[in-house]
């Protein structure tokens, strides 16, 4: 193969780094781009905080919580709101996949000597970083709900937030990759992701739900994120699952979603790639 190529003037041959450097640069772009769009930053932080305060306060006065040691609803709702921030940030960052495709950006990445895995890795880690940071920023409100974290607990919370972010970003990637319009993406989110969040124990506890809802909630991977956070933030609360089994479930979910993203991106077809 190279015989014919050798007859052309010798050029600077780039190093063979097809994975790490491209993934790094895609990750970097994702993060820089996000923080250069102030409205996105404000939206993604402000809307869940508003949501938490409005819904939390509203429900808190309307319904006296039935169980959970007479906990105020705002306190109960806190881990759920945190998961919501992570959900919103993760999923919405992957809207950039659709935007990149509509513009020529994705094309220019696809024609580069970059392994497709680098694209998934860079994009998903980019979204994960953003979602984790947003989640941890929200954690600054923890003292407000009477939670004071030890270093060890903080690290476990950070790990949980990271795992949920990673899994959801990969999910967002899988949804966004075959799409060509952001409207369709919004439709999927409303139809699929909001219910996923509602049924994660974020708004009402698993124990009080009817039998079929409990089944759905047990299948829902987000439940394990909410449960893990709740048991870390409120060690006295009653939890259905141990922190270990919650984290293990999240790891499996993350790996599954990432694997799925990986498979989707590596399909080669004779249809237009972008």
């Amino acid at each position, binding site marked *: 193969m190279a015989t014919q190529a050798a007859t052309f003037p010798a*050029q600077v041959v780039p190093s063979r780094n097809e994975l790490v450097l491209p993934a790094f640069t895609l990750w970097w*772009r994702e993060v*820089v*781009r996000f923080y250069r*769009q102030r409205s996105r930053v404000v939206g993604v932080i402000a809307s869940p905080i508003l949501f938490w305060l409005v819904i939390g306060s509203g429900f808190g006065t309307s319904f006296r919580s039935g169980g959970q040691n007479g906990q105020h609803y705002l306190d109960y709702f806190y881990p759920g709101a945190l998961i919501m921030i992570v959900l919103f940030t993760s999923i919405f960052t992957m809207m950039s996949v659709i935007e990149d495709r509509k513009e020529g950006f994705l094309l220019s*990445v696809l024609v580069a000597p970059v392994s497709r895995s680098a694209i998934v890795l860079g994009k998903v880690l980019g979204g994960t970083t953003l979602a984790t940071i947003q989640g941890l920023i929200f954690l600054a409100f923890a003292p407000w709900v009477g939670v004071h974290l030890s270093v060890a607990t903080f690290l476990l919370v950070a790990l949980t937030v990271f795992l949920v972010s990673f899994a959801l970003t990969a999910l967002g990637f899988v949804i966004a990759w075959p799409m060509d319009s952001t409207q369709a993406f919004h439709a999927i989110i409303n139809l699929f992701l909001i219910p996923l969040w509602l049924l994660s124990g974020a708004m009402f506890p698993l124990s009080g739900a009817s039998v079929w809802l409990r089944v759905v909630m047990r299948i829902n991977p987000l439940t394990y994120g909410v449960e893990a956070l709740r048991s870390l933030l409120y060690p006295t609360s009653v939890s259905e699952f141990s922190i270990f089994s919650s984290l293990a479930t999240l790891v499996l979910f993350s790996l599954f979603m990432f694997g799925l993203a990986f498979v989707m991106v590596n399909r080669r*077809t004779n249809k237009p*790639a972008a």
Partner: protein
Amino acid sequence: MPSKLPALAVDDPETDPNTSAAISIQNLLHRYGDHTALDGVTFDVRAAELFGLLGPNGSGKTTMFRILSALMVPVGGRAVILGYDTAKDANELRRHIGVVFQAQSIDEKLTAAENLRHQGHLYGLHGRALTLRIDEMLQRVGLADRAKEKAETFSGGMQRRLELAKGLLHHPSVLLLDEPTTGLDPGARIDLWQYLHILRDQEKVTVLVTTHLMEEAGRCDRLAFLNQGKLVALGTPLELKREIGGDVIVLDTKDPESLADRIRIRFNTEAHVIQNQVRLERKEGHRFITDLVETYPGEIEAISVSKPSLEDVFIRRTGHRFWTDRGGEVKQ
């Protein structure tokens, strides 16, 4: 500059093993469902040649561009660039070609230098070598003083130049450009073409550019005309125009069909009706129009004589105008 070989006939696509073909397109075939986008196209692009791929919308040039940039695997035939098969050796090929798409690929939220750094990383360049190369490229496309400004503040021409810098950052031997002057003002167009000539002459880069603008096509060393997925003409602009053999005369009249018939019989020459105009080719056109006007007094509303253009070549080869949707098929 390429040697003045005779234009290769379409139905006889010979490939000369002695001229080094940078790009070799061999019986390329592609379909989208039932629609045939490329119908067995064959031609070569020589090293350090500025080659134009010309065709109206829907002629198959975008499909060919996607196959050449290894974004799509053709249904049949193959495209070989620098010895690499675009379908089989895509990964190796990608290091050696630069691709500039019609759609904007730069990130407007990043600065000019950041865009290039990102691109460099994708191609495995890094560190000081990359920094130097970025400075060099920004200098060359005249953006050195705007290096630290976000691309969203740039004019269309500056963004295009940044695209070009992106495509050339990794020293490709072959540069593919898809309609590179789309949306540019005339000044910026001229700048871009001048730069493509410099690339070919000084860096010996093989440049393949798709366009639908005849005036741009005239600036290429050689051209391939695509129409409905088929190669209809191949050669230098001069060779292609020469085949017309004379001047092109276009007549406006009330009943073009009947006039064309009568001209054919009276003057024993070909005359076609294309979009309600009678069109014919004739040596010494300026004399011939006097004959025409005198023979058919009062019938001819307007008449024009011109040197053959590339569009005339296209009309001659396809029987319809470049821009119509098959509305103006030749009726004889």
